[in-house]
């Protein structure tokens, strides 16, 4: 029972785990290698065999409100400098990487790709 409660509480806290862009960067680097923000920028602006790049919706630099390429819905800035709420909720970050990597690359992103992109986004003024 105690174990079950422990697992349950882990799950609940895990869902809304507060984090920072820097912490996430470290986590992804630990799973891969040192991040390169220039590679991150390139990755962000390039198409990867499908119709869209990250920049199709978020634009470059992603430091202002942009519009979804299909629906026209306003998307808040992705760069933490312009939108401090970005990359502060781990579950949300996981969800959007999963969805958007699937849309742009047709697969999940690697930890290295995530590290590179976050490193670049942190540097965007």
């Amino acid at each position, binding site marked *: 029972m105690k174990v079950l409660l422990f697992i349950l509480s882990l799950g609940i806290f895990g869902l809304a785990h507060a984090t920072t862009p820097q912490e996430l960067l470290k986590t992804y680097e630990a799973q891969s290698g040192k991040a390169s923000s220039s590679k991150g920028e390139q990755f962000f602006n390039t198409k990867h065999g499908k119709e869209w790049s990250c920049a199709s919706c978020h634009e470059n630099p992603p430091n202002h409100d942009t*519009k*979804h*390429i*299909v*629906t*026209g*819905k306003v*998307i808040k800035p992705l760069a933490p400098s312009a939108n401090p709420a970005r990359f502060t909720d781990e*579950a949300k970050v996981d*969800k959007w990487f*999963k*969805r*958007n990597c*699937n*849309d742009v690359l047709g697969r999940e992103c690697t930890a290295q790709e995530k590290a590179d992109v976050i490193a670049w986004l942190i540097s965007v003024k």
Partner: protein
Amino acid sequence: MKKQFTFLLATLVTSSAFAAKMPMPSDMPKSYDAECASCHMAYPPGLLSEQSWQNVMGSLGKHFGTDASIDEKDKIEITNWLKKNATTRQKYSELAPGNRITKTSWFIRKHDEIKPDIWKRQGVKSPANCGACHTSAAEGIFSEKNILIPGK
């Protein structure tokens, strides 16, 4: 003749007034806004039938060309709410082709005067972007008085 005309006019006015209002139910869960309305407007559940919503929510991994998958808990909450508030009106009850509101016969009929180039304008982008022309779409008002078609 005049009487008939007045009656016809009254019918038209009332029916379009009905169609013009599609308010969001007051019990909308936060997850609907967070999960669905981050990419497109929060469509009022009354625009689709129960079965159509079930179909939409059952295929989120392939959602009109994108991966819109969400966690199970949110999915159940949103699905139940959409189905509970799905249309009960005959007009909206058809099974939407491809699960698209914009492919239903009432939608096509209502927009039949809109030329193809208007849908493609930068300010419109897609028939799914209700708010581009229906300036009060976010409040569930689709009245003809509240329409402003972007010039480009």
